[in-house]
């Protein structure tokens, strides 16, 4: 699956072998007062895919989504929907629907009227509208008697479902989600993530979701794109992104990691303190500087019985319980902090002076 399209013109995609993407972005830029919120994004989204764009706040992901929904038009580049250029097609003429972060429910309407809004736009007959609204309410697991309820009296999770049902009532080809779950508590969020995934599968529609939460992205997505400063840094399956982050930013964004900067020396790579570093064979890095990324679960305590390819010594200064696992913070001689995560059964029994290490095969080397 070609993830990041080369800067090809929209119609050249017809020649490629992969199924024609439902949404295609080519070098899309959006500039506000000289600031490029979205700075050249090319992306193909396939029919029926669940794509999540992850990035910190200010990375331009909301602007990207607003352009896709037609609420902003790109300053440069092309956006095509099923091969048709939609750069300047207004939002009400696009077969796409956005679920807002605020949900944007109409406060002066009942649950039923909210869901029926897109049907009223299409001048559907009242009885038919009501039937369709009740169907959709069942689909998003809203009780039938909510039909006449004031939407502002619904709980956070219920409002979420109303917004979803309203978006489905529009019957869009592509649904966009702008962090709709961010305001909910953890348990409800987990539940709705799974329901959303189910809805995606059942409906067969294309979902484009944005969030700053990696966890959310991992649970739901077929593919994840990581955005930073208006650009897509990496795109791939959750597994690809987790195991082979493209650079240090992606690695760090995807949770707690240990980072050891290294540089090229005669005969291999060395750490800052000059010690040689064992790097898995087959790793090729351009340039003379790189970072070794080791997830805390691959960092372990080194003893006489169990050695490691790379070691460093330090002092334990914090211990946390993560439930079934324990996490230690170790300060190295050079003052850097490392995280070691072990199963509870393997709790460190010795004193605070420890040697920790990792095997070359468990580390990822990324560019600066």
């Amino acid at each position, binding site marked *: 699956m070609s993830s990041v399209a080369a800067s090809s013109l929209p119609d050249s995609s017809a020649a490629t072998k992969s199924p024609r993407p439902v949404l295609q972005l080519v070098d899309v830029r959006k500039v506000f007062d000289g600031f490029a919120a979205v700075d050249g994004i090319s992306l193909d989204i396939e029919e029926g895919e669940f794509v999540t764009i992850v990035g910190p706040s200010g990375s331009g992901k909301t602007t990207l989504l607003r352009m896709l*929904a*037609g*609420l902003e038009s790109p300053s440069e580049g092309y956006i095509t929907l099923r091969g048709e250029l939609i750069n300047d097609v*207004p*939002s*009400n003429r*696009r077969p*796409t*629907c*956005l679920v*807002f972060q*605020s949900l*944007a429910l*109409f*406060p*002066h309407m009942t649950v039923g009227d909210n869901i029926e*809004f*897109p049907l*009223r*736009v*299409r001048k559907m007959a009242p009885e038919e509208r009501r039937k369709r609204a009740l169907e959709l309410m069942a689909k998003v697991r809203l009780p039938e008697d909510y039909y006449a309820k*004031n*939407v*502002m*009296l619904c709980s956070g999770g219920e409002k979420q479902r109303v917004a979803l049902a*309203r*978006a489905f009532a*529009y019957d869009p080809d592509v649904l966009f989600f702008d962090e709709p779950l961010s305001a909910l508590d953890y348990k409800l969020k987990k539940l709705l993530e799974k329901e959303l995934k189910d809805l995606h599968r059942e409906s067969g529609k294309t979902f484009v979701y944005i969030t700053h939460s990696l966890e959310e992205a991992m649970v739901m997505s077929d593919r994840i794109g990581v955005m930073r400063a208006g650009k897509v840094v990496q795109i791939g399956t959750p597994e690809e992104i987790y195991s082979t982050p493209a650079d240090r930013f992606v690695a760090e964004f995807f949770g707690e990691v240990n980072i050891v900067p290294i540089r090229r020396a005669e005969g291999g790579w060395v750490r800052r303190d000059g010690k040689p570093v064992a790097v898995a064979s087959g790793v090729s890095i351009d340039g003379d500087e790189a970072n070794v990324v080791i997830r805390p679960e691959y960092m372990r305590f080194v003893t006489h019985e169990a050695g490691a390819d790379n070691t460093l010594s330090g002092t334990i200064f914090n211990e946390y319980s993560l439930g079934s696992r324990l996490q230690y913070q170790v300060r190295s001689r050079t003052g850097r902090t490392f995280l070691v995560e072990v199963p509870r059964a393997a709790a460190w029994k010795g004193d605070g002076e420890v040697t920790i290490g990792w095997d070359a095969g468990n580390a990822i080397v990324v560019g600066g």
Partner: protein
Amino acid sequence: MADASLSAPAPKLTSGFRASLPVLFLLVAGFLAPLVTVAAYAFATPKSFDVFRSFTLQNFAAIFDPNNTVWTSFVWALALAFACVAILLVVCYPIAFGLNKVFGKWSGLVSVLFVFPLFVSENVRLYGWVLFFIKNGVLDGALKWLGFSGGPELLYTPGITLFGMVYVYLPFMLFPMTLGIAMIPRDLVDAASDLGAGRFMIWREIELPLAMPGILIGALLTFVLSAGAVAEAKILGGQSVITITQDIEVAFTYAQNWPMGSALALILVLIVSGLALTAMARLDLDKILGKR
């Protein structure tokens, strides 16, 4: 004091009640007492000052006498007030909408600028308009100087009275209306458009209902003010039509018939507050704002 409140089965003066005493006093002395006095005067012997000492329905009998034409003053006052509100609704909505488009969240502040003319006395401003419209005045004179046959005779007509009212009460409609429109969340308009709604449907289904609190408050304010307007009809209208407020003023001054003036005032208060309360009852702010 503390002991009393502790031991008494039902303390009469809770701290909340005591704290509200200054406001209560102000309301009773400044609001309720004058109203009660006016109401009492309305039932006093005509052309007397026997308030609270006499009770008669003669004033009302005189007003409702078929030969009395004072009802035309009520009709003129209410008709002008309704017309004024209607015109202000049409004139102010585009201005308020434009202010919100251009100034965004600062639009409320900008609409306050429209209040600045209120710092100049209403009479002075109205006489300014007289100079503008009068024969050989600004309009007429300028047109003649340009070689035209002169301006139309606008002064001293009911139409110019209405113009004066619209001019004077415009800020009272514009300010609440601008705030009302500013309360419409941008996301809702975007969402409606995203769901396929066209401009007119967004306006009818989203913008208008959500701006309604501000619009209704503006309408109510300007209606009450213009029903009690007197200077416009006198200065610009040249008494071409007599509004009820002018009748009341005459009764209290030249005629020295306070009971008659009070009876007219009481009827006006009943009509205006009846209309206002009916409108208020239909205006459920909480429901419109979705807080309930």
